[in-house]
């Protein structure tokens, strides 16, 4: 990772300091907090083997929260002249003044100490549209080699976020971002691959294009397999998209308000012995700032230990309510949701994806899931579709592509049916935030119907 020169960022630490100084000058509330975010981002989108959309944006946003007489409110603006900053401070003050007092509101947090994270690559931040187009050109070339059609995106840029308050708290984080995803389309099949991270070179774009192309080729002329319960190997993207539906359930407030599927299940064995999940913003494959929406340092929290729900995460206010310690996972205040773990890591085993396949007499291999929705909030039944590369496995080998399934599966049950776990990796999907998860071999995964392709 290379360090930012900082002055080149749309939001430097210096600019953030200056903006907060103005906020403090204009605010007349008992306590004042400023959350400042900036981004400079570009995305090249291609489909039908051509670039059809190609965009760039820059934005800076200032969000002021005030607390005054046990009342709090927030006002945000992307106008950063003095009058607009003053207006935002006044708007927050007015909004706070007009509401009933909240006896549970805590004073803002004092100064904090944060562990360092390094997630900035200056080459990624400076990537030109020409370089992105040239890389897309190589991907299109790969698709043409096998008479496929490519669609996807290649994006790059930087984000920065800062939070300050009038009790002396100050935190700043900058991060470069890049993402490549590709769908290779054949006459009767498709394949997909995706990676994200702070360094564009680590995306290995040509390897991803090749993986997607091979999936499309190997799933040509998909056959129909009847719906039912099958042993299924879920690739990391599919695992991640399912686990994402548990994030809010691990929030203390969610359990306190009895809207979590873990209500009544904390400290109990809910999942299989081989399930271990923790949240750790400092994991080398994780992303995001090392502080939460109130500026509290994010701590490593063990969520599931050998199948037992070991801990929840807590914002300051929830921790007070539930007689626990804050873990640094709170959302910006005021909010209804409390907190959630956002840097999930699921431990795996020593096995490769190929080991999982080789050990399977009969089953299905799933590349990716799509349009996952919660059917039942307490049993945590989820429904959704397979997509872009679903295969039949027989005698330890991938045999042929199959038509896509709809599933209805309790994720709680699923995490009690893990026969094998592969090596964890940073996964990216489209239904949740990035996580570090292994491929999983699951028995009796419930596919309830088929679609037509």
């Amino acid at each position, binding site marked *: 990772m290379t360090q930012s020169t900082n002055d080149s960022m749309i939001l430097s630490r210096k600019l953030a300091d200056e903006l907060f100084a103005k906020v403090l000058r204009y605010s007349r509330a008992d306590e004042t907090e400023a959350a400042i975010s900036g981004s400079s981002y570009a*995305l090249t989108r291609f*489909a039908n083997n*051509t*670039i*059809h*959309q*190609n*965009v*760039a944006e820059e934005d800076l*946003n200032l969000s002021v929260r005030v607390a005054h007489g046990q009342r*709090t*409110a*927030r*006002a*945000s603006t*992307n*106008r950063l002249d003095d009058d607009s900053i003053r207006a935002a401070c006044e*708007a*927050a003050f*007015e*909004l*706070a003044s*007009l*509401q*009933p007092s*909240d006896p*549970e509101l805590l004073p803002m947090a004092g100064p904090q100490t944060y562990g360092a994270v390094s997630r900035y690559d200056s080459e990624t931040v400076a990537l*030109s*549209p*020409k370089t992105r*187009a*040239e890389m897309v050109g190589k991907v299109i070339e790969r698709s043409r080699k096998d008479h496929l*059609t490519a*669609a*996807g*995106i290649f994006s790059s840029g930087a984000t920065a976020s800062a939070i300050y308050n009038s009790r002396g708290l100050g935190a700043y984080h900058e991060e470069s971002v890049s993402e490549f*995803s590709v769908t290779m*389309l054949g006459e009767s099949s498709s394949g997909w691959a995706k990676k994200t991270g702070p360094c564009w070179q680590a995306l290995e774009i040509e390897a991803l294009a090749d993986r997607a192309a091979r999936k499309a080729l190997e799933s040509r002329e998909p056959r129909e397999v009847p719906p039912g319960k099958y042993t299924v190997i879920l690739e990391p993207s599919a695992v991640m998209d399912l686990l994402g539906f548990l994030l809010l359930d691990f929030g203390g407030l969610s359990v306190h*308000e*009895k*809207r979590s599927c873990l209500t009544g299940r904390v400290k109990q064995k809910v999942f299989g012995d081989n399930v271990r999940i923790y949240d750790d913003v400092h994991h080398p494959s994780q992303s995001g700032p090392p502080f939460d929406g109130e500026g509290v340092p994010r701590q490593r929290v063990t969520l599931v230990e050998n199948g037992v729900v070991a801990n929840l995460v807590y914002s300051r206010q929830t921790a007070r309510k539930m007689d626990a310690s804050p873990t640094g996972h709170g959302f910006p205040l*005021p*909010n*209804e949701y409390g907190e959630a773990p956002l840097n999930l890591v699921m431990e795996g085993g020593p096995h490769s994806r190929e080991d999982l396949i080789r050990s399977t007499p009969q089953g299905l291999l799933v590349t990716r899931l799509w*349009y996952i*929705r919660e*059917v*039942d*909030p*307490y049993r945590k*039944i989820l*429904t959704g*579709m397979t*997509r872009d590369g679903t295969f039949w496995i027989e005698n330890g080998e991938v045999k042929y592509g199959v038509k*896509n399934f*709809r599933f*209805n599966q309790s994720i709680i049950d699923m995490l009690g049916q893990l026969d094998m776990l592969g090596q964890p990796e940073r996964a990216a999907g489209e239904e949740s935030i990035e996580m570090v998860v292994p491929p999983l071999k699951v028995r009796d995964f419930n596919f309830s*119907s088929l*679609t*037509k392709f």
Partner: protein
Amino acid sequence: MKDWAQNALDTALARGATYADVRVMDIRQRYLSTKNGHPGQVRDSRSLGLGVRVIADGGWGFASTQDMSRASLDSAAAQAVEIARASALCKIRDARLVPENKAVAHWESVCRIDPFTVPVSACLDLLLRTDSEIRKVEGITLAEAALDFRHIDQLFLSSEGSEIRQTKTQTGAGCVATSFAGSEIHRRSYPNSFGGQYQNKGYELVEELDLPGHAGQIAEEAAMLHRCDQCPTGVKEVILGSSQLGLQIHESIGHPIELDRVLGDEANFAGMSFLTLEKLRALRYASSIVNVVADATVSHGPGLGTFAYDDEGVEAQCVPVIQQGLFVGYLTSRESAAAVGQVRSGGAMRAEAWNRIPIIRMTNVSLLPGKGRLDDLIADTDDGIYMETNRSWSIDDRRYNFQFGTEIGWEIKHGRKARMLKNPSYGGITTEFWNSCDAICGPDEWVLWGTPNCGKGQPMQTMGTGHGASPARFRKIQVGIAYQ
């Protein structure tokens, strides 16, 4: 706004753009919510910026900025042209648009009571009264209510001479009662789930909805769901309530008719569509009583898909989609219309904000009403299930296989609503489902619902869409499959 837009437009053309359009948007939002007797979110936001979209060397480019200094506007316009030239490195053919007349217009949506003038204390008082009504009911573990106001002021300028100013006020309101007991969580929402009802209206929508007046009933139902029977599994007649049918239209008609999906532009993310080009005017999409339009005009009502001009400067239109069951029309843009040989865009291009390009979005995709009241339809049904208020929704990436769950259902026996059912769900294949429609209720039951959270595009854009529907009956539908 005009000066900012003109500066960016002039710079883009000077830098070599052969086509350019500029949108300036000033978006103001207020969101207020309460939970279990306390304020939840109380926040205001404002976002103002400019986006410039160009064609140069036959490729597309777009850049945006929130800095309205002359230097920044020039820089954004120049960046858009540079990006377009990079796009041209991978082009197969030049970008081409169907012609459109230039328009100079000013339009404002109807707003009787500006929601930003209603005191926040009065709004919170209404929400807390709603909350209180919910929590009066034994068994309720969570009461939530929210109001969402948005004011969007935008100017569109194009190199073809169009200059269009539009302002819209949008209001959303709703409440939810949640009950946890034993091993079940049940929710009931009013007037709809996932935020309630949204329309292009002012605070008058909040007054019309009367949240406190309906809160008690949904709370009673949420608590009662613990004591009622599970929705059976099997093949049944299903009557869908108006809001659930609105979402069914959204997912299984609105998305498949987006021509960018059909042409593959969304293949990597939102997906494609089973409605390939040879199906136009050939596919029997639905039974002969089904008529669907994509209507952006004011005459359709204050839907979230109502406007005067789309974000390419094309005037709002009413596009027939299904006529007497036959598939007859797509949602189109100037570029996609050109790609399939149509002479004019249907005017469906919209952008979430100043920092996003317009893409094809649903306008108000509505099922036209049939005849009679819901009570008459139930009386005409011997053995079926009435399902109301969406709880879950999912459909494959070409829009064939769908499954929906609703918050509540009632068994219908011999023409009467009988026992209440929990966890209702149904599923099927889009065209089989719509061809099984044998009754649609009349105009008195027709509601123009707002879906404020439709996601599409990369980077993702969230857009509001409208869906008018009255309750309708579908024969031989698979029910209960989510719990099988």
